[in-house]
C-alpha cells in the first residue's frame, strides 16, 4: 500500500487576499447543486395506538399522508408489531423532498410487550446494512439513503412519568437512531401539569442515561439562546390535528372542544411549532448528519469489527485493528506473516548451515586424520627405507672393504706363493 506523503499533511500557512478571487461564491454553488439533487428524509414514529401519531405527521407536513385512499396503519388492526413505510414526494419553493414515514403499528399494544422493540431495531439495522452494502460495492453509483434519520417517540400523557416500556425502548434505540421524545395529546394536560410531567421525564431520562437527540452548539449567540430555550422545553408536548377551524377570522388547524379550540400552531397551547421548526426548518440537515457520522458509523464499525476480528478477545490487538480498514488489517497480517516466514527461513537456514558446516568439518577432520596417518605411515616407510638404504650402503661399503681386503689378501697370498715358488726354484727348500 502506498504511504501517505508527508508533504500532503504539512503545516498550513495563512494567506491574506489582496483582491477579489471569487470562492466566496462556493456556498451558492453548493446551494445550486443541492437543489438540483433534491433531498431525502426518513422519519420514524413510535408509540402506542391512539396517541395521534398519524395526525401529527399530517400536521407537520401539512398534507394528508394518511387519507382515505392510503389509510394509516392505526385504522388497520394489527396483532404483532409491524414496521411500515410510506414514501411521498413533496415540493416547496423549488426544493424537492422525498419523505419516508416509517410507522410501527402494534407497538406496545399487546398484553405482553417484551421485545416489541425488536422489529424496530431490525428495521433500522437493515437500512444501515443496505447502505453499508451499497457503499462497499465495487461499482457504486446511485446510493439511496433510506436510513432512519429521526425517531419520534410518543409518550402517553399520563402526567406521572415514563412507563417501563418507554424506558426500555429508548435505552435500546438511543445509540442506533436520533430519538426525540414527545408528549402526545398534550391538550389533556394543563400547563402546570405539563411542566411537572416534563421535568419528571427529563429526570428519568437522565437517571437511565438515555441519550436523546442533542442540539449542536452554534457559535452564533442568537442561535445559542434559541437552542437553550428549546432544550428547556424538552420533551416537547405536541398536539396534532387534521381539521382546519376558523378562529377569529383566521383558518387554523386545531381541535374543537366545547370550552374552546386548542390551536396546533399556537405556541402557548403546545410545542408543535417548536417541533416543526426544529425538525424541518433548522435541524433536518443536522439530524441527517448525526445519523451518517455517528449512528451509521457505529453500526459499520461494529459490523466490520465482527467480520475481521472474528470476535477477537484480545482487546489491545483489536484496538489497534480498529484504526485500520479490514483490507489494511489483512495486509498487515500478511506482512507479519511474511516477516515470520522470513525469520523462520533464516532460522532454518542457520540450522541447516550449521549442520552442514558440522558435517563438513567432521569430514574434513577425518580426512585430515587419515591424511596425517597416511603421512605418518609414509614417513615411517621412508624412514625404514632410509634405514635400509643406510644398512645396504653400509653393507656395500663393508662388503667392498672386505672384498678389497680379500683381494689384497689374495694378492698377498699370490705374492707369497709366488715368492715361495721363487724360493723353491732357488732351491732353498730341502
Amino acid at each position, binding site marked *: *500500500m*502506498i504511504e*501517505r506523503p508527508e*508533504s*500532503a499533511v504539512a503545516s498550513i500557512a*495563512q*494567506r*491574506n487576499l489582496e483582491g477579489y478571487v*471569487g*470562492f*466566496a461564491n*462556493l456556498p451558492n454553488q453548493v446551494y445550486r447543486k443541492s437543489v438540483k*439533487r*433534491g*433531498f*431525502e428524509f426518513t422519519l420514524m414514529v413510535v408509540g402506542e395506538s391512539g396517541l395521534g401519531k398519524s395526525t401529527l405527521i399530517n400536521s*407537520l407536513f*401539512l*398534507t394528508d399522508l394518511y387519507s382515505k385512499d392510503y389509510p394509516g396503519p392505526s385504522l388497520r388492526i394489527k396483532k404483532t408489531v409491524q414496521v411500515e413505510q410510506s414514501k*411521498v*414526494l413533496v*415540493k*416547496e419553493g*423549488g426544493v424537492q*423532498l*422525498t419523505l419516508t414515514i416509517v410507522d410501527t403499528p402494534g407497538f406496545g399494544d399487546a398484553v405482553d410487550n417484551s421485545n416489541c422493540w425488536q422489529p424496530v431495531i431490525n428495521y433500522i439495522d437493515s437500512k444501515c*446494512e443496505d447502505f453499508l*452494502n451499497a457503499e*462497499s460495492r*465495487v461499482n457504486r453509483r*446511485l*446510493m439511496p*439513503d433510506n436510513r432512519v434519520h429521526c425517531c419520534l417517540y410518543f409518550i402517553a400523557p399520563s402526567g406521572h412519568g415514563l412507563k417501563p416500556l418507554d424506558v426500555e425502548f429508548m435505552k435500546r434505540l438511543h445509540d442506533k437512531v436520533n430519538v426525540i421524545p414527545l408528549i402526545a395529546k398534550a391538550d389533556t394536560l394543563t400547563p402546570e401539569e405539563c411542566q411537572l410531567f416534563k421535568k419528571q421525564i427529563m429526570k428519568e431520562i437522565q437517571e437511565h442515561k438515555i441519550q436523546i437527540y442533542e442540539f449542536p452548539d452554534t457559535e452564533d449567540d442568537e442561535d445559542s439562546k434559541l437552542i437553550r430555550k428549546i432544550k428547556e422545553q424538552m420533551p416537547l408536548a405536541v398536539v396534532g390535528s387534521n381539521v382546519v377551524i376558523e378562529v377569529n377570522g383566521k383558518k387554523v388547524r386545531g381541535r374543537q372542544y366545547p370550552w374552546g379550540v386548542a390551536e396546533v400552531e399556537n405556541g402557548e397551547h403546545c410545542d408543535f411549532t417548536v417541533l416543526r*421548526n426544529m425538525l424541518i*426548518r433548522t435541524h433536518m*440537515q*443536522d439530524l441527517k448528519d448525526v445519523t451518517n457520522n455517528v449512528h451509521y*458509523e457505529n453500526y459499520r464499525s461494529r459490523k466490520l469489527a*465482527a*467480520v*475481521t476480528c472474528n470476535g477477537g478477545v484480545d482487546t489491545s490487538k483489536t484496538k489497534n485493528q*480498529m484504526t485500520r480498514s*479490514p483490507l489494511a488489517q*489483512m495486509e498487515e*497480517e500478511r506482512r507479519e506473516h511474511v516477516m515470520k516466514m522470513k525469520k*523462520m*527461513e533464516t532460522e532454518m537456514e542457520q540450522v*541447516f548451515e550449521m549442520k552442514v558446516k558440522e*558435517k563438513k568439518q567432521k569430514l574434513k577432520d577425518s580426512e585430515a586424520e*587419515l591424511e596425517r596417518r597416511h603421512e605418518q605411515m*609414509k614417513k615411517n*616407510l621412508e624412514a625404514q627405507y632410509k634405514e*635400509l638404504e643406510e644398512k*645396504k650402503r653400509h*653393507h656395500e661399503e663393508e*662388503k667392498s672393504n672386505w672384498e678389497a681386503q680379500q683381494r689384497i689378501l689374495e694378492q698377498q*697370498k699370490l705374492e707369497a706363493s709366488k715368492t715361495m715358488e721363487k*724360493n723353491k726354484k*732357488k732351491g*732353498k727348500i730341502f
Partner: protein
Amino acid sequence: MAATEIARQAGEGARAVPLAGHVGFDSMPDQLVNKSVNHGFCFNILCVGETGLGKSTLMDTLFNTKFEGEPTQHNQPGVQLKSNTYELQESNVRLKLTVVNTVGFGDQINKEDSYKSIVEFIDTQFEAYLQEELKIKRTLHSYHDTRIHACLYFIAPTGHSLKSLDLVTMKKLDSKVNIIPIIAKSDAISKSELTKFKIKITSELVSNGVQIYQFPTDDETVAEINSTMNGHLPFAVVGSTEEVKIGNKMVKARQYPWGTVQVENESHCDFVKLREMLIRVNMEDLREQTHTRHYELYRRCKLEEMGFKDTDPDCKPFSLQETYEAKRNEFMGDLQKKEEEMRQMFVQRVKEKEAELKEAEKELHEKFDRLKKLHQDEKKKLEDKKKSLDDELNGFKQKKTAAELLQSQAQQAGGSTTLKRDKERKNNPWLCTE
C-alpha cells in the same frame, strides 16, 4: 460530506402529494450551506507544465496573494511534486487551498518517465482516501481531502501545436483528474495566431482521445455561460503580480515598450474567464467530479485488483460480510500454503545436502582405501627389499665367515707353513728373506 453527497433520491415508489401550506423544508439547501460554510471548504490544484511557464505567477495572480516558492532551475534530475497548503478567507468563506507544483517537468533529456511521478502522486492521494474510507473506525467527516480536484496543464506558447510530451502526459492524466489546459504566457502570441493555435490544440486533443474537463451544462442556471466557455478552451492566460497605473486605477499588468498587457482585460487574455470558470462557477463541480468519477474509477480498479467482486458466480450479490469472510479465508489458506511450501523446500534441501555429503564421504573413504592399498603395496615392496637385503647380508656374512674360516685355516696352515718356514729360516739362515 462525501458519502451523503453520493446518496441520490430514489423516485420509485414515492407518490407526489400536495402541501396545504408552508411546511418549511425549503430551508434545507440553506441548512446544508450553513453547515458547509461552518465546516470550511477544501480545494486542491495541480499545476503541470515546464519550468518557466509562469505557473507560480499564475497561482499568485488567480488567488491574489503571494504563495511560497522561488523560481526553480532547469537542472532537476527528475520530476518532483511540491505541495503547499494555505488557508484563505473571503467574506465568511474559509478555503483550505493546496497548490501542487511539478518541479523539473520537461527539463530532462529523456522525458519518457516524466508523467510517472505525477500519476503516482495523484494515485497516492486517492489511495490515502480509500484507506480512510475502508477503515473500521473512520472519521471521513473531518478528513482533510488531498485528492487533486483540478489539473491546470500549462502549454508552451509556441503557436504551432502541442508537444508530444504534452500529449503523452495529458493522455495519462485524463482518466485520473480534471484537466484544464491553458496556454501560458500568451502575451507572446498574436490574436490571429492564437485562434489558429487554439483550434490546432483542440483538434489534436480530440484526435488523440484526450478527455479534458468540460464545464457542466446540465444545470440551467449556469448552462449557458458554461457552454460558451467550453468553446474558449484552452484559455490563453497571462499572469502578473505587478501593478501598473492605467487611467486612475492600479491594475495587474505586464509592461512592454510597445504597450501594457492587462491581466484582467478580457480582450487581452482569458485570465478572467479562467478565474470565473475555475473558482467562481465550477469549483464545487470540479470537486464533485473528482469524487464521483475519478476517485470511483480508481477505487473500482483497486478493489478489482484485490479480487473483490460484486456478484458471485451465480450472479447473486455478495454481502459485505461474505466478501470479507471469503477474502479472509482465502488469505489464511494462502498463508498456510506458503508456510507448507517453504517447509517442503527445506526438507528437500536437507535431503539433497545429505545425499551430497554422503557422496563426499564415500569418495573420501574410497580415496583413503586406495591410499591404504598403495601403502600396503609400498610396505610389501619394502619388506621384499628388506628381505633381499637381509638375505644378501646373511649371504655375505656366511661368505665372510667362510672366508675367514678359510683364512684362519690357511693362516694356521700358512702359519704352520710360515712357522715351518720361519723354523727353516731359523734353521737355514741363509734362506733368502725379503
